[in-house]
């Protein structure tokens, strides 16, 4: 068997009822690699990354994450999830907890880190995402961009090996997008293995090693950002790019 990547899809299929949402996905993501996934809505990109931490289950094929095969009885899914950060489009911060409590909840209860230590690390992380002054704020008191940065800090608090981003800036007002992207660039530059579903092509050009283009549940095209943006190979990717780059 050849060397396996950090995330390894082999012939993965998934259906929602009769809808084939993932078709024969084969994709390998190396450690420290940043992969941007794009494509029209409904193309299966969110489903693709949601499978990686088991928020969705696959019907057939093999999906191996950090050397552990998903769906294998020997794989402890709860434990594996602690190694995978997931950033949601709608942030999903815990509304009844402060920014700091959002960040420290899993480290304290899952990693069993002493509270004082976890809080110190949490403050550092919030400072890192530019929110040192919002430590005690509740999510409803924060802007969308600030909430998403707390959500990223919440993931980083677990010191994950992989981070997944599901359209992290799509729910944000335009002026807040860059503050979130800046944090994501910083995380990428520290060597995090990342899969990012996004249409932010500036981000892709800056930090991605690879862009994967999906349509109708299948990976249609995959290449470096330069190749993909300047010389898309398929009609579908050309049509998609002309739509998102026109404005």
């Amino acid at each position, binding site marked *: 068997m050849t060397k396996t990547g950090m995330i390894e899809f082999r012939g993965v299929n998934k259906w929602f009822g009769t809808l084939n949402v993932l078709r024969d996905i084969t994709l390998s993501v190396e450690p420290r690699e940043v992969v941007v996934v794009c494509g029209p809505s409904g193309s299966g990109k969110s489903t693709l990354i949601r499978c990686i931490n*088991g*928020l969705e289950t696959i019907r057939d094929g093999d999906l191996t994450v950090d050397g552990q095969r998903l769906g294998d009885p020997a794989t402890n899914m*709860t434990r594996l999830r*602690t190694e995978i950060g*997931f950033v*949601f489009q709608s942030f*999903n911060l*815990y509304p009844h907890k402060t920014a700091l409590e959002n960040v420290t*909840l899993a480290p304290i209860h899952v990693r069993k880190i002493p509270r004082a230590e976890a809080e110190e690390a949490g403050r550092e992380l919030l400072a890192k995402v530019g929110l040192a002054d919002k430590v005690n704020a509740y999510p409803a*008191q924060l802007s969308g961009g600030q909430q998403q940065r707390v959500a990223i800090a919440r993931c980083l608090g677990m010191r994950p090996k992989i981070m997944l981003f599901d359209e992290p800036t799509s729910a944000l007002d335009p002026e807040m997008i860059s503050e979130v992207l800046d944090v994501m660039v910083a995380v990428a530059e520290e060597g995090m293995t990342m899969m990012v579903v996004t249409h932010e092509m500036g981000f892709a050009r800056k930090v991605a090693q690879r862009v994967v283009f999906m349509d109708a549940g299948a990976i249609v095209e995959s290449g470096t950002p330069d190749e993909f943006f300047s010389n898309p190979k398929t009609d579908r990717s050309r049509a998609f790019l002309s739509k998102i780059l026109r404005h």
Partner: protein
Amino acid sequence: MIWQQLQSIAGSYPLALRGLGMTVVLSLISLVLGTLLGFGLGILRTGGNRLISGAIGAWVDLIRGTPFLVQIFLIFFILPELGIELDAFTAGIIALTNLAACFICEIVVAGIRSVPTGQVEAALASGLSRWQRMRQVVLPQAMRIVLPPLVGQYVLLIKDSSVVSAIGLTDLTRVGWLVVQRVPNGLLVFFLVGLGYFIVCYPLIMLARRLEQRMGAAHGEVQL
């Protein structure tokens, strides 16, 4: 004449106090046990196990769909036939606790289902166990929905406790029956019995109203 009757009633105040005490003790024990059991059932009902969930659902429907008086009779008169001897107090506690648990279960289920799935997914994604997700993320948010109807339900259950007088427990209602045999003025006696219940229930009614206002305001406000 009414003065004589009032004096006569006043003379039986030790009995009335005992009845009121019985009503309060019975209600209090059943509500505490019923709340614990109701939360447990509600959590299991929303859990992944279809068999357990279905069984709880069926039991709750059965209890909600039959008169409480019938349930008490079944527990007090039928269980001894099967060799389970119960005194009236224990039977009353069991029946009331069961009733409370079933209604509270439904309230808790509604609360848990009101928490957005994104919250559970976030908790799941950060590796929290099933119990941790419930304890740290779902229940605190569900409580906002649960609390006002829960307190309202307590009021209903305190009043339902009057049915236990049917199996001979000397609660407030039964004291009414006893006194009215001596003082032939049902209107007066049961007015006072009703007043007794009202004194116990009214603070809870006020609490439920305040909670509802607070929760209602919290929806529109910035801070949760």
